């Protein structure tokens, strides 16, 4: 297969990578760029584990071709923390024990961050609907919702 050369910006860094025409963006991130924080769950857009931001919009990277990333800006879980300093949402996930096995967690954090950037003060229903495309089989969701609510509160009035 003729590989496709793409130039893209990932977490603020310009990157060049060769992709197979049928590679997903998820394949490109994990296998081409070594960014394995983004997880594969279902590979059919149902579970949200592979959530990333593509030109500022939340998408499932399993439903985007790597080749489609040409000229685009991608933000992944690896870009959420500031060096060793966790993002508030990450910190709140730890404090609320909003993760167990952890496979869904990068997707939830990327999706929750996208929500709070769009709507800094979401109510519980809004959070649950926004995160409905992220599946977690461990926590039962309550702890995740509480972590996101707490993160929103802290971002609104930093302690």
């Amino acid at each position: 297969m003729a590989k496709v050369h793409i130039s893209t910006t990932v977490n603020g860094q310009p990157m060049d990578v060769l992709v197979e025409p049928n590679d997903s963006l998820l394949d490109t991130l994990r296998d081409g760029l070594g960014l394995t924080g983004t997880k594969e769950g279902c590979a059919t857009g149902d579970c949200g584990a592979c959530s990333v931001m593509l030109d500022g919009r939340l998408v499932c990277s399993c439903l985007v071709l790597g080749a489609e990333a040409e000229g685009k800006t991608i933000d992944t879980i690896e870009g959420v923390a500031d060096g060793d300093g966790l993002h508030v949402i990450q910190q709140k996930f730890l404090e609320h024990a909003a993760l167990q096995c952890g496979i869904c967690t990068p997707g939830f954090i990327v999706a929750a961050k996208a929500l709070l950037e769009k709507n800094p003060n979401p109510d519980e229903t809004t959070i649950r609907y926004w995160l409905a495309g992220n599946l977690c089989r461990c926590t039962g969701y309550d702890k995740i919702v509480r972590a996101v609510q707490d993160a929103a509160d802290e971002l609104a009035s930093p302690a």
Partner: protein
Amino acid sequence: MGDYAYAAPASVDSTIELLSSSADSGTRTQVLAGGTDVLVQMRSNDRGPRLIVDIKQLAETNVLTIGEDEIYIGAAIASAILNENAELKSRLPGLVESADLIGSTQIQGRATIGGNLCNSSPAGDTIPALIANSAVCHIVGSDGERNVPVEDFVTGVGTNCMAPHEFLLGLRVPAPKGNTGDAYLRFIPRTEMDIAVAGAGVRLTLDDSGTCTAARVGIGAVAPTPLLVPEAADALVGTQVDAAALDAAAAACSAAASPITDKRGTVEYRIKVVGVLCKRAGEIARDRAKAS
């Protein structure tokens, strides 16, 4: 068997040229918009190699205009963009809701109405809403362009009227002008993110006395293709869209349905429910028409 390949042509002409030359050489092609169906198909039961032709780079497929007479929705416009457009939402709330029903936040960021139509599933949620709104497919190909009413576009389960050298550029929807309302409802066993068991879209225009002067009803998931139901519209025109008229329209939808029994619902259930959905969507469309 060839290999997979990817192309994102920069112009409509070069897209048509690529589709035509591929058809002539026997290369399988698939047009890519949001990809939320295409990539799933590539990973499930249909893995054969093909040339993926991405139409998202074309300026023409990214057009969203709300004109005096016509609303034009480019084939690459994602559902999230429709939903964020307050004017579109107020003009065609039912159509926007039908797109908003499809998938999660992540899916909404990619999925398009054009793709939902071209995927041509019997249960595609936007299709009955497009039919109710008299939407027309703007198709381009090596023979030029043509306009096909949405109710004539889908020809069977997963098939449509486009030739291999053609693709959907956008959808033309007649702009509602006063006293007009639309609505789409579907039934699923969960609160969201499921495939319709049945769906119904209604668009109505009323006169100043509240009498219905024009109506269109589309139904989905109850036949091999989404259907226009003229008998349901006839039951509404000339009435006050009261309970008796809505019951008659519901009966017409049930009579037009020829569903299958599958894990989502039985024949009997779908026939009953599509009528109920028509009635309820009709009530919403009527109230929106009065408020418009």
